[in-house]
């Protein structure tokens, strides 16, 4: 299958998030050159600005940066957890990529979130409802997509939990009774329940024990291999980026300082900050 330039899955242009009231010079006075997110004139904070990138089907994009880089903000805006200040994003499967999804109504955003996207948070409590069983969490997504048959719902939940190596006999147990790694895996199975073409992973292994981390990363790799989902992986950990991603964006103080193929960023970083990050890899 030949590669085509217009075959993109997600296109993001000029995505910006500013807290507070920005002035004329706010964007010009913040960023990596100033080593600051805060505008000296208006005290407003530029969480991220002028974010541009494309994502093609089946690709894995990494966003790496330290705290305050704005990497989580980008993903939160694309998943509609945060309201944008400016910019646009288009999703090919949604009206053939002709509509800016960031301007859509709440109902349509909910439709896009449920059917075309999946999200795995760092903290399972953000992605799962601990008041429902793990099967119930998956059922929520399936029901929202219109599946009203309990037998079918349970069948699909069974299938998903098997795929993510969660013991299926615990399908009716609440996630509060699971270990951290297993909670993450339930989150992953919930995120892929409706076979979305796009999956966001926000620091999903940060805070987990090393052995658990390896298991979760391996699962994500395998799912990527089998399902071919496009992913955006946010992490401050370059080794996670190295393991999972094809391309990487390096962010500092809310701006993109470099983007390119992951192995190129790791072996031939061009920007000063990227070189600093890479040389700090243990």
């Amino acid at each position, binding site marked *: 299958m030949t590669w085509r330039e217009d075959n993109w899955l997600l296109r993001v242009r000029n995505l910006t998030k500013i807290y507070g009231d920005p002035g004329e010079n706010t964007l010009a006075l913040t960023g990596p050159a100033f080593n600051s997110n805060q505008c000296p004139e208006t005290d407003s904070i530029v969480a991220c600005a002028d974010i541009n990138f494309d994502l093609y089907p089946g690709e894995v994009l990494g966003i790496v940066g330290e705290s305050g880089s704005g990497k989580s903000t980008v993903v939160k805006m694309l998943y509609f957890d945060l309201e944008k200040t400016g910019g646009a994003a288009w999703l090919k499967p949604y009206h053939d990529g002709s509509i800016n999804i960031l301007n859509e109504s*709440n*109902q349509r955003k*909910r439709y896009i979130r449920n059917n075309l996207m999946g999200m795995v948070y760092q903290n399972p409590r953000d992605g799962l*409802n601990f*008041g*429902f*069983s793990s*099967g*119930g969490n998956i*059922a*929520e997504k399936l*029901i*929202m997509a219109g599946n*009203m*048959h*309990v*037998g079918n*719902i*349970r069948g699909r939940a069974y299938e998903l939990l098997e795929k993510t190596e969660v013991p299926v006999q615990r399908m*009716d147990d609440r996630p509060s009774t699971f270990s951290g790694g297993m909670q993450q895996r339930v989150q992953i199975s919930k995120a892929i329940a409706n076979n979305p073409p796009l999956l966001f992973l926000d620091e999903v292994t940060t805070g987990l024990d090393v052995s658990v981390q390896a298991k979760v990363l391996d699962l994500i790799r395998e799912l990527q291999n089998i399902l071919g989902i496009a992913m955006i992986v946010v992490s401050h950990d370059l080794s996670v980026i190295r393991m999972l991603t094809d391309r990487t964006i390096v962010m500092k103080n809310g701006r993109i300082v470099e983007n390119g193929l992951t192995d190129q960023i790791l072996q031939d970083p061009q920007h000063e900050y990227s070189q600093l990050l890479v040389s700090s890899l243990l």
Partner: protein
Amino acid sequence: MVENKKYSNKYNFAFIDESTKKEIRRKLLKAVAIPGHQVPYSSPEMPISRGWGTGGLHITLSIIGKADIFKIIDQGSDASVNACNLREFVNAMTGCETTFDTAQATLVQTRHRITEEELNEKQIIVFQVPLPEPLRMVERYEYKTLQMHAEADYSKMWVSLYESYVRYGAIMQGAGYPVMVNGRYIMSPSPIPRWDTPNLHQAKTLYLFGAGREKRLYAVPPYTDVEPLEFEDVNFEIEDFADSACYKTGFKKAFLDELYADDASRKYVISDSNFLDKVAEKQETHQYTNKYIDQLEEYDLERG
């Protein structure tokens, strides 16, 4: 026209002042225009406590006219303490005729039951509602439930039904089973038993619901679709009284109350007291019919 002169000098007809009645009526119109949608209203102070039927009373007093014939029941009974109390209050404030006979009444106020006999286009029934918000059991924040209703995002409700089924083998909601009104809003029909729920669907009469403590009104106008929430393979069921019958009349096809004697033996009796009297005296009755009761009949025929 009020007989007791002591009252006639101090109280307006039907107790509530005309401006407040106007406000409540306007809110009722809005509720009727948007079936199943909860409308906030003034819920004025009454000489009875919150939680004792103020919501139903507000509606009754706002719409009652001098020619109305008023009936009030509490869990089906005309003779319970609270029903009697409120009946006397309404009678004193309006001078209206009161009755126990469902067929005769023009305005019926009820607590937690629909009458066994079918109501027609000329009648109105008013419900006393404790908790108007059907989503409260899955979402405790008001701002979130408002948003869920506004966007018709009821997935949490459905998941809780799924969880109930998975945990107990059935959807355990006994009274106040959540329903979908006019294909748009999920509504709590007040804690009526499952037996009564199908009688809301495509009915001839106007149903008005008032929650005084929560300050909400809602309505189901005549000939509106009201469907209990169910899955494709897990269906809504009404109570099964197949093995029991009213001990006074032997009647089976009505909602029965359980009575316990001192020796712990059980008896059943028809809950709707007026209906019970009519059946016992072999008078003609005009009961509600719906597909669930029809299914019961077939079931009975099968068992002989």
